[in-house]
């Protein structure tokens, strides 16, 4: 019933999520990475709520509320508290130059579009373009994971991947279990966040740099 407007707004929000994925890629400071991630959380929650209206699916409001509470509020707050408590002024420790990362990001988005659009010629336009956006967000999240050595930045990359999944799931009209699946995926993210916080709090490792962990691989000696 909402016709074009529904389509346009869904696109706008999806595009916003993708834009923030790029913003995540060029932040050098951890605090800025966390802020950008919180913004992405807000947009994903809005996108879920909008799909709830457009599809007349009340369950999606629950998804939106949970996503907002966790990704826009709780997780960024917890990470910022940890940074402050441990007095970590950390940089995001890029393992790859920012310029190279951005070029890689653009290429990944092109790849996502090239892969999804021809493959989905049968599906209708919204689903196709939603999928292309979602896959781009997933790939950019993975790029962030490999281009950052810092544990927190890697976890945020993983959560970026999860935002892409949520975008795909809410765009698939009438998907059963969408609330349960998105919540389950979120639980996994919460577990990873809890793990990284526990790791930092133990202070066995002086730095957040995951390179420091590699020394402990069981193969030495």
């Amino acid at each position, binding site marked *: 019933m909402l016709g074009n407007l529904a389509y346009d707004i869904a696109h706008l929000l999806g595009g916003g999520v993708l834009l923030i994925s790029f913003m995540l890629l060029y932040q050098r400071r951890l605090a800025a990475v966390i802020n950008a991630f919180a913004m992405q959380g807000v947009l994903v929650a809005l996108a879920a709520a909008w799909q709830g209206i457009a599809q007349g699916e009340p369950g999606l409001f629950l998804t939106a509320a949970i996503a907002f509470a966790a990704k826009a509020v709780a997780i960024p707050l917890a990470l910022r508290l940890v940074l402050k408590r441990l007095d970590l002024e950390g940089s995001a420790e890029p393992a790859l130059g920012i310029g190279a990362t951005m070029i890689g990001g653009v290429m990944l988005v092109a790849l996502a579009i090239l*892969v*999804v659009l*021809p*493959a*989905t*010629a*049968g*599906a209708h336009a919204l*689903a196709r373009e939603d*999928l292309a956006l*979602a*896959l781009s967000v*997933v790939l950019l999240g*993975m790029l962030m*994971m490999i281009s950052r050595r810092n*544990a927190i930045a*890697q*976890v945020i990359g*993983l959560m970026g*991947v*999860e935002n*892409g*999944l949520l975008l*795909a*799931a809410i765009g*698939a*009209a*009438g*998907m*059963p*279990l969408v609330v*349960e*699946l998105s919540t*389950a*995926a979120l*639980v*996994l*993210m919460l*577990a*990873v966040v809890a*793990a990284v916080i526990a*790791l930092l709090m*133990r202070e*066995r*490792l002086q730095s957040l740099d*995951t390179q420091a*962990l*590699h020394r*402990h*691989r*069981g*193969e*030495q*000696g």
Partner: protein
Amino acid sequence: MPLPWAIVFFPWLGALVLAAIPNGRLAARVNIGVSAVSLVLALTAFGEPAGLSGWTHLDALNLPLLAVGFVVGLTTAVYSAATLDAEGLDALGARAYHAAFQIFMGAQALALLADNLGVMWVAIEIATIATVLMVAIHRTPAAIEAAWKFFILCGVGIALALFGTILLYVAAQPVLGEAGLSWQALNGAAAQMDAGLLNLAFVFLLVGYGTKSGLVPLHSWLPDAHAEGPTAISAVLSGLLLNAAMHAVLRGKSIIGGNPDTLATGPFMIALGLASALLASLALWRRADARRLFAWSSIEHMGLAALAFGIGGAATLAGLLHMLGHSLIKSAIFFGVGQASILKGSQKMAAIGGLIASHPGLGWGLALAIAGIAGLPPFLLFVSEFGLVAEAMATNPWLALPLGIALLTAAAALVSALQSLCLGAPTPDVQGARTTVAATLPLWLHLGLAVWLALAMPAFLASLLRDAAGLIR
């Protein structure tokens, strides 16, 4: 409550009870009890008619995997109880460990039984979280590194698998509507779905669940995770988790294979499987750590299984036998290696030697198990590898060379490991450490099962496996 639900919920109920028991030794015994009852439940499922009950289903493919899973679960619980003191867990650690073990058992059963692909995904995720906890339980820097890598790589893997699942739904939605995540519905209606979307979905499912089953290129969590945590965990990781993930790949493969317009799924599986087997067969050389060595061997065997499913035809049956045989023999090896590393106070290859001379029961058991995993007769993996090679030669002769190289390189590496671990002059034991019957018995039991299934598989099981091979398209 339908039986499949009971098979899932009973271990989870057990986990609740175990989390409440402060006494580690008592908990270990209760853990054995829970595992034994679960095994009985799983075996009763053979008598149930195949079919749907709610979100779960029973069919020829998941029944044998389920049974082997709970057999390994029970023997692992026995082994774990016998070696609990040596693992040196504190009271809280022991509670967390036993509870996580049963959560894992329930989750892997759910992953096998789920008809709804969303539920299957959630089950694999729960199994992941439970195993991360167990891998990290000793909290040494090496354990933390292993758990971190496990978490991050498997997080990416299961995220990709979820994306694949969503794509399957998008493909199915115009045909099936709201029923679009049920495996049986998807499998039946695959021919009417959009082939392009199905292709895309398969790639994500294969790479996603392939990560969890240790296939290249996201395999590197596996050796680390197997080297840390109590040894019992390595046994269930290799024996159960890898199978559950491979089973998920097979479910996806058979949906995509049901549509005549999709790309052939075989070559993808052949490529990943062959790459995994070749890489692992080279990595098996010069390992310093015994548990990492056998973890690499798991990568090799999952690669061989994927290769078998990729070739298809008669090789599919070989692939299923390979999964079952690998579960039994690899967990037996971890029981042996675990006990040896308790005796010697280290899991380094250099510290373990001459087991046959000093501890014949353990030494011979471990030697036979290593021979079994290297693919020597009379164990089940010989049967499956023979079937795989024969079918590969018949259908894709060019595969013979790389496959032969992988098999021979791996077998040679394993035989040289056998020599250094079991033969020769014994290395010194830790003061006061000794082998116990309860810790050695599971090893021999698994060897017995692997020989029995190779030489005299019961007719009903053989026909069940043939039906299962028929389900995979």
